[in-house]
């Protein structure tokens, strides 16, 4: 399986096609419903975000607590469609792509194509597999949201499928 390391440059992104299986390593940020709402509040007020959006990959996920001796607990993807309301604006502001599960809207797919971004599908339900592949997890914002807070994660060999590629093609 093809191994890819973040950050991805334009050439690498263009070489990935919907349906390709990859093992992804590097730094990603978790955010789901509540964290996105707060990110939008910060953007609307013109305030600084708690992590650099440009070139970043957001993982739609909320982990279980870490057991003793582990960086993170189980941490598979959540349903991406709920984030359709947020993804296009973030992509237009420089977000490189997202990891989640399930289809996303035509509007999101168009924003991915327009910005040469990418959407990876993680395997929904494989929480232990992904949790085990997270080598470091640090809460960087909204700690009060517990599992819904934003975590910066160092991941190693995340098994993913390219779901929507930079050309706008979708696996769904």
């Amino acid at each position, binding site marked *: 399986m093809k191994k890819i390391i973040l950050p991805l440059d334009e050439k690498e992104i263009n070489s990935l096609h919907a*349906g390709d*299986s990859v093992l992804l390593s590097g730094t990603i940020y978790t955010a789901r419903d*509540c964290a996105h709402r707060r990110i939008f509040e910060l953007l609307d007020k013109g305030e600084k975000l708690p992590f650099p959006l440009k070139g970043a990959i957001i993982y739609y*996920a*909320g*982990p*279980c*607590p*870490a*057991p003793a001796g*582990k960086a993170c*607990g*189980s*941490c*598979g993807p*959540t*349903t991406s*469609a709920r984030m359709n309301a947020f993804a296009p604006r973030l992509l237009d502001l420089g977000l490189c792509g997202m990891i989640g*599960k*399930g*289809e996303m809207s035509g509007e999101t797919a168009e924003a991915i194509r327009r910005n040469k971004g990418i959407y990876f*599908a993680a*395997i*929904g*339900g*494989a*929480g*232990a*597999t992904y*949790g*085990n592949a997270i080598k470091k997890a640090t809460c960087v914002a909204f700690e009060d*949201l*517990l*599992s*819904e807070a934003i975590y910066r994660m160092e991941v190693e060999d995340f*098994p993913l*499928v390219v779901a929507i590629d930079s050309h706008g093609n979708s*696996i*769904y």
Partner: protein
Amino acid sequence: MLPFLKNLSYNRGMRIVNTQEIQNCVYRLARKAGLSLTDSCRSAMEEAEKIESGAAKFALNTLLENERTAKREQMPICQDTGLSVVMMELGQEVFLEGPPLSKAVDEGVRRAYRDGNFRKSVCDPLTRQNTGDNTPAHLHVEIVEGDKIQISFLPKGFGSENMSRLYMLTPSEGRNGIIKSIVETVKLAGSKPCPPVYVGVGIGGTFDSCALLAKKALLREVGSRNERADVASIEEEALEKINALKIGAQGFGGKVTALGVSCELRPTHIAGLPVAVNIQCHCVRCEKEIL
């Protein structure tokens, strides 16, 4: 308990159970459920993996391996350790003593989610403030004959719960209307609920009891058939039509969109035909114990 009550219950042959025992039982069931698929679900997933190809096969392979990882590392299979649904069949010859039943169940959930490093996924519906301990549990008690207590624990993830639907059909829509509603629900859900799904269907009753029937149908083994032949034939035809949708594992396309369809029914009003379709993802976790 008052001494005279104890004597009374003893004289009547009541079995006395302290709710602490129920708390401990809920704790055991919850801990176990978070870490393992039901045997019938695993078998259905293994069968699906054999006949799929491409991305769907990759997904099913990853998921079967994931359960082994969960066991080995003692981590939850899926991070969505769900709302805690507890179905209890309480024999009417049981006398409960100790803390109130619902408090005992909640305490079992609280301890299990803390000790198991399970995610706390319960929040206020408006403020979205997390309750912090995955309580309250969703406890359904049915009083039955006998002196036993059967407890089923179903951690219910919400990627799939969100895709569930309730239909108030007219009697004339009948069998075809029921099948159409089941298939439509799965089609609208698409790739979102983590297919291949397990579909629980309630037929009849009222608006509320119909939805509960659908949830109860999910307690059945994946692949089992209703004892009534006319109901079993609805299960079979709905499953066939769902798999013809070709949504496949994770929505990657394939032959297996559902692992099974289970229908439960009860009498309803002469004017209506309620149908509730409760979607369960491929991660069927359900543990049972009889006290």
